[in-house]
């Protein structure tokens, strides 16, 4: 049976871990990449959140990073398999260049997500599970409570800094 709720939940967890790990490895919470991202981070801090988590959320809004890479890689695998995922990586790279971003986080996230999603399709998951999973994962970061999400991301960032 494809796409039962348990598969969707597992896929959401895998997508969340993939994009948060890669974003934090590429130092997205360190500073706002553009002035708009800094402004979003400051507004989230004013509303009771934490500053570095707010910067990371601003960076996710204002340029395609690893979360966009994960979504488009699952879309590519759903449509055409591995070549679709690599085409999506190329498109994410172009999108990053348009938004004045170096584009390493987005492209790396897209390529790792392509292989992760393809591996899961071999053991009975559908790529559609991963598309919905990524939408749910981004909902937990950006759409439920900005205050709690930014505090969680700040805690993870402090942990990575050592």
């Amino acid at each position: 049976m494809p796409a039962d709720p348990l598969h969707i939940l597992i896929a959401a967890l895998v997508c969340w871990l993939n994009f948060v790990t890669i974003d934090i490895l590429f130092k997205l919470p360190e500073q706002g990449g553009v002035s708009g991202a800094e402004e979003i981070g400051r507004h989230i801090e004013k509303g009771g959140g934490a500053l570095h988590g707010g910067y990371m959320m601003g960076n996710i809004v204002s340029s395609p990073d690893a979360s966009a890479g994960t979504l488009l890689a699952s879309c590519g695998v759903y449509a055409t398999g591995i070549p679709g995922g690599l085409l999506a990586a190329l498109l994410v790279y172009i999108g990053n260049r348009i938004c004045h971003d170096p584009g390493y986080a987005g492209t790396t996230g897209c390529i790792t997500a392509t292989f992760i999603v393809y591996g899961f399709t071999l053991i009975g998951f559908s790529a559609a599970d991963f598309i919905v999973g990524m939408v749910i994962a981004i909902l937990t970061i950006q759409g439920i409570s900005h205050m709690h999400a930014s505090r969680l991301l700040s805690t993870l960032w402090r942990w990575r800094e050592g």
Partner: protein
Amino acid sequence: MNGTEIALAVCGIIALYAAFRVMLEKDTMKKLPFLNVISFAISGSIVLLVPHPLAIVAAAAYFVGSTLESNAIASTFAGGPRNE
């Protein structure tokens, strides 16, 4: 109801929820993360509706376009007019 229909329904519910949150949020800058959730859900449902290679290009174009729009709105709001 098969797997793709469940997936589409979840995407639609999340998009509608985020649209409500955009309407109810007072702070202009804090509306932008909810708009980002909408563009994730819509890009996903484009590919779920049409599993075709061209759909990946269309979804990527929509996603990058909406990101560019948020970026421009945020940086103009951040004081573009006053700093130049």
